[in-house]
């Protein structure tokens, strides 16, 4: 197993490097000069001198490979340079918002799991009955509903039915957990419902597969009550692929929150990213993409470790 893990660990680096190379050079194929594009928005005519000054400020006058190495070395030390738009250090900007996005992502994942596992199990137990169909339609609908629209509908319903709006000003968890919960539960529900769809299907198919195994028949044959058969024998084994799916979705969630943060006016990584794209703040985009995909790659690796640890077939290989 150690050999497998080591190999898996080492494979992570070429991918990370690939991501860094790709995003860096993508930002360099921008038609025209980054500085020119940025300045042209200001007042029209800008003197060549100022343009040159700006280029020097961002190090754009140096050879591309040198720029890349400088940037990469900075990124390794979590120093992503300064924003092209505000001039603020990017590391600070991101640090402020990371916790918020992370919290919503965790809450949304919890919502997804709490929805997916019971629904998936019921759907599998009642295969091909109306219950199964309702659950399947519910989960396919989750995949089809844009979570930002669901967010708007939530706000609308709260407003019309309860004459109440979730707080719009962010309260950190450690200041007032209840206020914080009241604000963040709605985006978590909207996103969680969407993300529960895949997990529900996975739970259903994994349960269906496990329930056909010999050891389930054995457990039933020896007279074990159905509840124990399901919880101790079936569910425990069916959870393995579900866990992997949920973890991978969690890894993508950090980026997937982009649109929903807009609706709830949450100043997280997603909102920052949209602003960066709208303002063509290339250094900020570079940093954010690297962080989000780096996070995905690391979580992906963590899932593999977890899998290896939980599945004795891999653990003892």
């Amino acid at each position, binding site marked *: 197993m150690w050999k497998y893990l080591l190999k898996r660990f080492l494979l992570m680096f070429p991918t990370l490097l690939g991501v860094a190379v790709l*995003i860096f050079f993508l930002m360099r194929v921008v038609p025209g000069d980054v500085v020119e594009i940025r300045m042209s928005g200001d007042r029209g005519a800008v003197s060549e001198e100022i343009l040159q000054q700006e280029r020097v400020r961002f190090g754009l006058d140096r050879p591309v490979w040198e720029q890349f190495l400088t940037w990469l070395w900075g990124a390794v030390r979590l120093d992503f340079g300064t924003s092209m738009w505000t001039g603020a250090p990017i590391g600070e900007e991101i640090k402020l918002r990371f916790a918020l996005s992370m919290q919503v992502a965790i809450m949304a994942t919890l919502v997804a799991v709490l929805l997916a596992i019971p629904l998936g199990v019921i759907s599998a137990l009642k295969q091909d009955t109306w219950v199964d169909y309702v659950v399947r339609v519910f989960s396919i609908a989750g995949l089809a509903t844009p979570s930002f629209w669901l967010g708007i509908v939530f706000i609308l319903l709260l407003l019309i039915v309860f004459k109440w709006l979730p707080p719009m000003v962010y309260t950190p968890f450690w200041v007032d957990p209840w206020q914080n919960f009241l604000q963040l539960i709605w985006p978590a529900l909207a996103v969680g419902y969407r993300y529960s769809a895949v997990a529900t299907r996975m739970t259903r198919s994994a349960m269906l597969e496990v329930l056909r195994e010999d050891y389930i028949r054995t457990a039933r044959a020896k007279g074990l009550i159905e509840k124990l058969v399901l919880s101790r024998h079936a569910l425990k084994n069916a959870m393995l692929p579900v866990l992997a799916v949920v973890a991978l979705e969690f890894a993508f969630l950090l980026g997937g929150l982009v649109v929903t943060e807009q609706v709830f006016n949450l100043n997280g990584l997603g909102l920052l990213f949209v602003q960066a794209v709208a303002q063509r703040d290339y250094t900020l985009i570079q940093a954010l*993409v690297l962080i989000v995909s780096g996070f995905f790659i690391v979580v992906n690796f963590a899932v593999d470790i977890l899998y290896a640890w939980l599945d004795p077939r891999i653990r003892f290989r």
Partner: protein
Amino acid sequence: MAIERATERLGELDGAPARPWVDAARDFVRRRPLGAVGAAVVLLMLVVALLANLLTPYNPVAVDFAAMLAPPSASHWLGTDAFGRDVLARLIYGSRTALFVGFGAAFFGATVGAVLGVGSAYFGGRVDLYVQRVMDVFLSFPLIILALAIVAILGNNLPNLITAITIPMIPRCALVIRASALSIREMPYIDAARAAGFGHGRIILRHMLPNVMAPYLILLTAFLGQAILLEASLSFLGLGVQEPTAAWGLMLRGAAVEFAEAAPWMAIFPGLAISLAVFAFNLFGDSLRDALDPRLRTQ
């Protein structure tokens, strides 16, 4: 049940079906009612998009300050928006945008992905390894993040929007197609083609690509739903389709949220349209997968 199905099959065997497509469609409707519902909605959408100018008397971009934020009524069935534009007309014309971007992105994404996947499987060895590594890199970007980054680079007009949605689809398709192409490569007829001295291009295009048609079609329909959703998201963020073009995501932006309480029709209907369209494509795609994938057919 099984015997019944078997005899049904026997009945189908005597006398070759005169119109195989019609029979296949009838079979699909009977066996997969949910998929048929999806297909019906998809067809409806196509008809609506084609006949948009016949279905509504209103111009989707015509501003009418006399009828701002009008609630649903006999003249404006689904009400009007903050510029007095008819919501129904914008929904109807919006289906054109959704289908155009959806079909464009899904088609290019699935096709380029299929060619890459088949090529990667056919050549194997080092080519395969490098292509896979590059795909791995692309796969570690969340869909919308990559699309947004591309919008930032290219700027947002319609062709660029389609490109931005296409590129994240390619590696997802290449991955699946490669897996099925790997088994096809080992087939005797590929050896035969090679022995007959056919070139790589001919073998890939004429012998391998047609045999990955089933996963290709499945991916195409799955991507369609995703592409429509992605276009709506980007337009909602203001980084996709631009005003005054009618697009569902765009309709949910700005005023729809500001006036949500006073004019909820502005926020409700475009979202329903997006959900219904994507839902229909997903239902249809799922059933198509069940019907075309031989491994799932027995279930």
